[in-house]
């Protein structure tokens, strides 16, 4: 055999090309070190696919607004900040995995995010193990700042209990204390109904009855007739999704909306926007609303939002969660003058949000005992014939401090290492 160059087949060239392409995909991670002073990275996990994608997108938009403002003022500790977002698809296992990725691979210094409660709880666990500050933006379930609270975790959105309490008080004052419930027959519905019943009894009202409707019920007439016969002041309808549409439609057909008030639980601008007209009625609570004529800075903030996002949308409570979440982290770091987690946690405890960030009238601060932000509830009535964004009429802005459970009753014991 003579000595000659090894023959190169077409296949080898294709393979080499593929390898080159693959290496180009991986290289950006290496490049960032060459850009002088490294920015501080903040990791955010949120659902950008699936049922909660609209809410996740809103939170991201809010965080990006805060990011631009913070960087315009010189960043954190004199360094620029950078937001690294990851899609958790509202899956708790994937969220925990992405939290590991953000910490180990992207080397973020702080964590934030969550729409689904389960993802908030799973990342809560990861952040605590890694000793990293985690700002929960959405994810309302009580244990995050209750039985499963950790020193590393803070939460912007209100608890399930606060949501119920904020609305219950308003409904009780306005309409009276005889209530009937239609509850979806699964765990979350039961918990919500129990908190409502407890609150109602505490205020001196009575539960006239409670119908458990299986998920996917299409015919609500038997529950509605039972509700009507009991002559309530308020009918609380805790169903969700398509069940909510069906039940509200039938309640309107029966003329029940004219006989007594119908109320629900949490609603959001994103949800209201997607509802058909028939289901757009009753009393609900939001956690923030863009139309607050008497609150300073709100109008300017909405205008600033629309300057950046020109798709005709209005900021929602979720946008504010992302915005307030990142600003809170920045304020905590500035006050601690360090990226040390314990120092930041101590700095955030009791920290009060300034008017241009809280964007609501009441005092808003992180409660030291359970790290829950004391932000307001916005109970009110849905405007049936309203067009986006005029979908809601806020009746009252209830201070969070007034409706939150006392720390001793939340079951939270912060686990700082001494």
């Amino acid at each position, binding site marked *: 055999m003579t000595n000659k160059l090894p023959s190169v087949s077409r296949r080898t060239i294709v393979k080499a090309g593929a390898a080159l392409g693959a290496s180009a995909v991986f290289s950006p991670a290496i490049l960032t070190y060459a850009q002088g002073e490294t920015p501080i990275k903040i990791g955010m996990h949120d659902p*950008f696919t699936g049922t909660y994608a609209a809410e996740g997108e809103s939170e991201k938009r809010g965080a990006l607004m805060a990011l631009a403002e913070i960087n315009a003022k010189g960043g954190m500790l004199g360094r620029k900040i950078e937001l690294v977002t990851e899609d958790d698809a509202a899956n708790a296992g994937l969220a925990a995995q992405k939290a590991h990725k953000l910490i180990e*691979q992207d080397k973020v210094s702080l964590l934030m995010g969550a729409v689904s409660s*389960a993802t908030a*709880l799973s990342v809560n*666990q990861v952040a605590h193990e890694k000793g990293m500050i985690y700002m929960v933006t959405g994810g309302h379930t009580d244990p995050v700042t209750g039985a499963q609270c950790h020193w590393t975790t803070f939460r912007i959105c209100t608890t399930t209990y606060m949501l119920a309490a904020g609305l219950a008080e308003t409904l009780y004052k306005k309409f009276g204390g005889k209530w009937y419930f239609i509850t979806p027959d699964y*765990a979350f519905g039961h918990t919500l109904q129990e908190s409502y019943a407890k609150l109602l009894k505490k205020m001196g009202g009575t539960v006239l009855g409670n119908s458990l409707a299986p998920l996917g019920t299409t015919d609500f007439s038997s529950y509605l007739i039972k509700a009507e016969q009991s002559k309530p002041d308020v009918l609380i309808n805790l169903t969700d999704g398509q069940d909510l549409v069906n039940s509200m439609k039938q309640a309107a057909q029966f003329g029940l909306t004219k006989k007594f008030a119908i109320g629900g639980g949490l609603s959001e601008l994103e949800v209201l926007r997607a509802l058909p007209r028939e289901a757009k009625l009753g009393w609900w609570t939001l956690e923030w609303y863009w139309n607050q004529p008497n609150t300073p800075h709100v109008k300017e903030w909405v205008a600033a939002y629309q300057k950046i996002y020109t798709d005709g949308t209005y900021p929602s409570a979720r946008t504010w969660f992302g915005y307030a979440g990142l600003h809170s982290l920045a304020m905590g770091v500035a006050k601690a003058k360090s990226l040390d987690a314990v120092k930041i946690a101590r700095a955030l405890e009791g920290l009060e949000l300034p008017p241009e960030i809280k964007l609501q009238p009441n005092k808003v601060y992180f409660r030291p005992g359970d790290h829950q932000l004391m932000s307001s509830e916005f109970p009110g009535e849905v405007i049936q014939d309203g067009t986006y964004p005029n979908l809601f009429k806020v009746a009252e802005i209830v201070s969070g401090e007034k409706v939150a459970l006392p720390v001793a009753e939340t079951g939270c014991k912060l686990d700082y290492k001494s």
Partner: protein
Amino acid sequence: MNRIIAIAAIWVALVALPWWLPLIGGYTALGSKVLIYAIATMGLNVLLGFTGGLSFGQAAYFGLGAYGAGMTLKYLAPSTPLAILIGTLVGGAAATLLGPLVMRRRGIYFAMITIAIGQLFYFIMVRWNEVTGGEDGLAGFSRQDIHFGPWLYRLDETNFYYLVLLGFTVAVAVMWMVLQSPLGHTFVAIRENRRRIEFLGVRVERYIWAAFAIAGFITAFAGTLNALLFNFTSPQDLHWILSGNFVIMIVLGGMRSFFGPLIGVIIFVVAQDYLSSITGNWMTFIGMIFVLIVLLFPRGVLGILARRVEVR
């Protein structure tokens, strides 16, 4: 000889993974997750690829293992080995007890009844709020360091990976021995020609039951490790979507080959992890990869590689 070199190379790569994975943009927890899912899918493949039983509810035993381990740590005793043992037994026992319901059915009915049983456990976990944490998932437990007499094995990120690797090795050895035994040969024979085996006087249903139980125990074992990986488990770990993903991973890698599922898991998990960081439409790409592989390599990635080796 080539085979031995290939297997040795795989093991060296697995042992050294905590060093090289971060260099190419991965992280240790991702390596642990790949191995855990590999145990689960290889276990399922004993039933699916080797016996020919299409189980669409395998996540139920994965989730039962996870909840079993989590609840042991949370309510019973702070011991990692005990949690793994109890979780595996709970999930495996459930599969063993339910096997007789499943084994009589064939084809689509087999798939349907496994989905139904899977969703049964899913709804138990969602609705039994006080014990399982309902939709929020089970949290509030953490893996405990392991004591061997005076020695302490601290379960940090890297050491936990080695625990998973040990589990993977044991599971692979067990499955390999089963598939090399007369029992394993009977499984394959049932897949190839069930009627003929029946005519030979073999009680086919009992063997399907055995395959179902073995798959159940091994998947449950993977589930316990999955609960310990993030110290968290949720009803999504029992949902039929995860069961379907298991089947997709096996088909991607090649369901006729022993290590096929491992390749499928690597493709699926890494693609999910990497693509979902870049684009919100990552599911589209996973779907495209799946369609391409089914069209171009109906025997899976490893199936096609194995055939090329044979041809040469």
